[in-house]
């Protein structure tokens, strides 16, 4: 009896091994061929020279491309802009996200409708969002200019996307428009996990809604804030679509990714383009790691 059961057990275990490998094979193959291998190829390109197209001898140049990129003023301004995008986007997303989550936390009539509407901007391709918002910011025929002029707040049309800080702000606005639904949902889920007893306990202690929020809700939302922070940062760091549609490769709004695109595909400078891309990847990886940690702690 026991011998028979062992053989069954063995076969089942072996089957599990073989089947296991077979079943992960496609996923692993796809990832290795289409993600890891190109990653290595890209890295190799980042440590080579641009070749005679750039008046150089082909060959390996170590970290020279990385140094070039760090010292290049255009790349530096792209990095500055990206930092601005991230700080602005994440601040807006967290403040507005919590506000929206609090508003939609309790069930009310029509909440389903509001939630449905809320998700829409996130579901749209960011390129389409850019197209829709162009109508708002266009210097000649845009809504913003039209409304502000009719209200006599401005005297002649402004070119919103041409100004320095302003352009960054408006593009961030478009980006936040698309990301906010996701962040709001993260906070909504976070609020849901706070048991009601906590509130009733503090109400008994005589706390006003505002104090409740500050001293009870906010601290308990910390894991959600951590998740929102890292998700928001990851998304803002790689901002591309909105900028491309609204302002092309204009210098005043270039993010690192736009700079990578311009260097690699317009100037055909694959060497420097990949170097910049990898620099950004390292920073992103750090945030990705933080995200993993934050998620771990939140799902304890």
């Amino acid at each position: 009896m026991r011998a028979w059961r062992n053989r069954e057990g063995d076969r089942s275990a072996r089957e599990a091994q073989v089947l296991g490998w077979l079943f992960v094979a496609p996923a692993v193959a796809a990832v290795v061929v289409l993600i890891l291998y190109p990653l290595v190829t890209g890295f190799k390109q980042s440590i080579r020279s641009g070749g005679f197209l750039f008046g150089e001898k082909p060959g390996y140049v170590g970290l020279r491309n990385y140094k070039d990129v760090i010292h290049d003023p255009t790349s530096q301004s792209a990095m500055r802009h990206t930092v601005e995008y991230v700080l602005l986007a994440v601040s807006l997303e967290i403040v507005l996200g919590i506000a929206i989550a609090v508003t939609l936390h309790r069930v009310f009539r029509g909440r389903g409708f509001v939630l449905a509407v809320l998700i829409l901007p996130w579901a749209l391709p960011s390129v389409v969002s850019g197209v829709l918002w162009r109508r708002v910011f266009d210097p000649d025929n845009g809504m913003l200019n039209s409304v502000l002029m009719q209200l006599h707040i401005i005297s002649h049309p402004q070119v919103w996307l041409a100004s320095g800080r302003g352009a960054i702000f408006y593009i961030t606005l478009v980006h936040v428009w698309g990301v906010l639904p996701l962040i709001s949902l993260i906070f909504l889920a976070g609020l849901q996990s706070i048991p009601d007893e906590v509130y009733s306990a503090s109400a008994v202690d005589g706390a006003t809604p505002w104090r409740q929020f500050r001293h009870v809700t906010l601290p308990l939302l910390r894991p959600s804030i951590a998740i929102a922070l890292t998700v928001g940062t990851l998304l803002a760091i790689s901002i591309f679509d909105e900028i491309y549609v609204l302002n092309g490769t204009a210098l005043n709004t270039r993010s690192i990714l736009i700079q990578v695109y311009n260097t690699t595909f317009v100037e055909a400078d694959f060497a420097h383009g990949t170097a910049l891309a990898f620099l950004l990847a390292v920073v992103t990886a750090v945030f990705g790691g933080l995200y993993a940690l934050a998620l771990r702690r939140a799902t304890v």
Partner: protein
Amino acid sequence: MNGRRGLIGLAALVVSASLLAASCGGGSSSSSGAGGSSESIRGQTITVMVPYDMPQKLLNEFTAQTGVKVNYVKLGWDATHTKLVTANAAKVYIADVAEFDWSFTGQFAGAGWVEPLDTVLPKPLLENLKNTDAAFSANGHTWAACYSNDFRVSMYNKKMFAKAGISSFPTTFDELATDVQKLKAAGIQYPLAIPMAATEGGVTPWYLLTLAMGGQLFDNNLKPQFASPSSAGYKALQWEVDALKNGWVSPGAVSLDDTPTFDKFTAGQNAIVLATGPGNMPTANDPKQSSIAGDAQLGLVPGMTGPGSSFGLPEGLSIPVTAKHKAAAAAFIEWWEQPKNAIAIYHTQGSLPCGADALKQLSDTGQLQGGAVVTAELPHVVPLFPSGAPIWYEQFSSDAQGLLNAAVKGQMSVGDALNQLSAKAAAHTQ
């Protein structure tokens, strides 16, 4: 045993599915045509990548004549350039006949991305194109067949000029300034149409203004000349910045490329397009395409003391080395250059023909719109790079696009922008 066979069947399925990623092939796979006989190219399909419209009717005629079908891909100019660069750098097939701008010569020819045409096209055709050959020649070969004899000239709305009481197009920048004020007084808010986006079309006006103001971008040793405040390049950029500030140009121009800028002119919003191609006259005067049909006229580019210099930016057709049907591609180029077809294309696409035969036919039959001005401008046309576009022109252009755009937006001073541009350009020639 039953189970194991099933397992192996499943394994085969899974493995073959993951092998999909490595599958090769797809698309036409015939070798590049050998020989030039028209019989051997029948039935082939070629891809032609040119950034301007081509009426299907003409393409059908080509197919009827040669049996070769044409897949015509029209993207924007910058997008076409980016795709060609990317595909060529990766040595990937993208088209059989490809756009070849004068600015490509240094890079594309230097990198060996296109076939030399002097052995592929018939001698009479090459002879015919001799006048426009220079821009596409390098290292003793011709790399493209000119199809658009483009140079810069101004265009204006004569009805608006009449309304403002201006009798003739200004010949100097001082006269231009006076005329702009008259046009504004006559109710035209933004008289000048100049593209200033961070695109190739947005830097061309600066090139033109530099030449018109009597200077050059680079000297004979390719050293940048535009950083010093007394240089023509510096004055040209300052002029553009001032034009924006003084309301001569719409503030939205900083994000407009040349095609939308021209569209605004033909929609009747501006009185003068400072930098455009002579081939755009048919479009501007076609009632189906323009609201100002009949009022568009060409004008000589103004200069400091009289009409200024202009420059030629011809575009040609090339055969990438990665093309699949090179004989059919050559046949297409030959067909395009025949005077009959080149003229038909001129009327619809606006590309002024390059062949001496076609040009003569056009002006003899009086079909050359604005012919007198075209003839008058030609002596003023000089090449932007006297010794040919350098191999690093693309990076220079890309840098210029960003920096000039920043200057007109007021984010950088003219001096800063041009100093940076000069430094970057100088780095290429070290």
